[in-house]
């Protein structure tokens, strides 16, 4: 029912969702909060890379790591400005939803207003417009194998998403820092008594997650050819949320899987039900999946000791 090309398209989109959702799910896993600033960092990652390449003539292969580092710094800012103060005040998780949303709105607003005249001219000059990386930033070669069209950038995204999946899975499950993360996620008090610096673990988690968002943003900008203040908010946020929930919150393999599944579902809906209804169908499927599996596909019910 799906041609190879369509399946491939679905998987490509899916790996973009997955990349974005990875960082999302890390923060949820450890902090139990939805970090709505994630989409803004995603956008800014793309913007940083674009500005380095297009405005400052930096080679992409250098610009990308710099932009990712920048995104990581934003993560630190988010932790200190929007998350830690709330933890100190023992605020309910939903409060973090609002503070991070505030951060996201502010970021979008700032970029949107940077038309070259303002103080942000060095970073962004196109206001609310959408731009694409200058031709030749990355090899845009399009492989054609077995009748399939495989654009190099998208192939890269697919590969990177798989590599990160394996790497992160190993980090979280097999290494001491990973154990510390899970320990903090489950019981910060006990973790502190074991000599784990809870605040530091959380900071690292948020920074890492933001760096991932930045990476995802850059790849999105390169592969889709669309960099604008809205790419995070409009194109990716809601789906990213859907993906981490599908995968079972805080579950890394689940998140990657959820990404692919959502991507394929969308293409399937497009092919089976026509373009008009495809979006509606995929949301309906999301709804049904949750009704059938209330904790996501790979999610496990948190045992409630009575």
């Amino acid at each position: 029912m799906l041609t190879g090309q369509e399946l491939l398209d679905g998987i490509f989109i899916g790996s973009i969702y997955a990349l974005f959702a990875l960082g999302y799910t890390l923060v949820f896993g450890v902090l139990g909060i939805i970090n709505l600033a994630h989409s803004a960092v995603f956008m800014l990652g793309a913007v940083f890379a674009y500005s380095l390449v297009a405005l400052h003539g930096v080679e992409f292969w250098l610009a990308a790591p710099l932009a990712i580092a920048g995104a990581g710094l934003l993560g630190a800012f988010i932790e200190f400005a929007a998350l830690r103060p709330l933890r100190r005040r023992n605020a309910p998780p939903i409060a973090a939803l609002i503070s991070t949303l505030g951060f996201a709105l502010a970021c979008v607003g700032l970029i949107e207003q940077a038309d070259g005249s303002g103080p942000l001219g060095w970073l962004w000059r196109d206001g609310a417009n959408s731009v694409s990386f200058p031709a030749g930033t990355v090899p845009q070669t399009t492989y054609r194998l077995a009748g399939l069209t495989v654009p190099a950038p998208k192939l890269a995204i697919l590969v990177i998403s798989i590599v990160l999946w394996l790497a992160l899975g190993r980090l979280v499950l097999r290494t001491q820092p990973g154990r510390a993360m899970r320990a903090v996620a489950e019981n910060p008090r006990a973790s502190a008594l074991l000599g784990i610096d809870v605040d530091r673990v959380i900071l690292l988690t948020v920074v890492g997650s933001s760096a991932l968002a930045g990476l995802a943003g850059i790849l999105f900008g390169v592969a889709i050819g669309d960099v604008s203040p809205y790419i995070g908010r409009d194109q990716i946020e809601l789906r990213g949320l859907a993906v981490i929930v599908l995968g079972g919150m805080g579950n890394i393999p689940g998140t990657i899987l959820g990404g692919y599944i959502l991507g394929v579902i969308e293409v399937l809906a497009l092919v089976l039900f026509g373009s008009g209804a495809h979006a509606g169908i995929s949301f309906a499927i999301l709804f049904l999946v949750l009704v059938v599996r209330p904790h996501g596909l790979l999610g496990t019910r948190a045992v409630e000791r009575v």
Partner: protein
Amino acid sequence: MGEPFARIAAACAAIVVSVALAACGSSSSSTQSKTIPLGAVFSLTGPGGVYGPQQKNAAELAVEQINAKGGVDGKKLSITVLDDGSDKQQSAQVTQRLIQQNGVVALLGPTLSNSAVAAHPIADRLHTPMLAVSTTGLHIVGSCPYPCTYIFRDSLGEASAIPANIETYAAAAHPKTAVLLYPNDDKFSVDGAKIVEETAPRYGIKLLGVIQFTKAEADLSPFVSQAVSKRPDVIFITSLGAIPSTIMIDARQQGFKGKFLGGNGFNTAAVAKAAGAAGTGAQSASAYYLGNTFPSNAQFVSAYEQRYGVPPDQFAAQAYSGVLILANALERAGSSSDLANERDAVRAALETTSIETPLGPFRFTSTHDVSQTIWIIAENGAGGFRLVKSVKP
């Protein structure tokens, strides 16, 4: 839980005081009697920020130039531009505020069609002329669902632009088949799509498929590949923002060799820039062509470039023309002591407009819509446009 009502009051008071301090900084827009206050509702923030800033620049430029020439029978013009945040509710709110509080004689805007349908009824209800300078949707003027005798439009509606474009290309290249791509969650795009679906067959162009998606699509490739796989001569894109350029790039990547036809959504430098080489030849009908050399445009272009360092686009030209049209109407309406009468007089005068603008010779139709030369333009692949043909009204 205590008494919430008492608390509401308390909190409201608290908010009032706190933000009032901030609000004190707000700019005064009170108007002296010897100036003629005009207003404009543009989208300077939000997605509409793609167009609003140029509109604001051009409108303010026009006012300066007119005042420099001594204003309108001795009185200087003043224009208050308020941002509607690309939000229809805000658009209506600021329209009401400009009329009721700033006592403007006439208004420009709003930027977006979605906002216009909220703002225009307010202006009409308050008997204040409002000139749409960028809204191209259906039912903006003429057959509005609400009384709109005070509403005018100097922007080229898709209803006239798209057919003109299709006609021109059909005459030139006799395409047989086409596919239509558009986001179905955006009024502007849907309006355009409906027009294409009506018009294309009339010129012997068969629609092999109509492919819809949403504005929030992460990747358009699957939709584009569906379109390309049908091997059409033409791909219609009735949309704006990032979508046209993204589709063009993708389609070319997938080996599409045919033509891109579209509507007003193409007519910004941004689209041409983003599409780059992929967009070469993408053709649309525009209310404005930068390269026109007749004096009213030449002067405007040079003044605008000198002032803002970039060439004006269609939206700037239409806003600029809007101010000229209002000033001209004010002149003919003559001044009146009573604001209501003055507004009515301006409204009457507008109906008989006939002036030279950067858009070309300009007059309104009986339904207050634009009647002007249509410029068929095509992207030159380097972020600019070239003139294909001009269509007299």
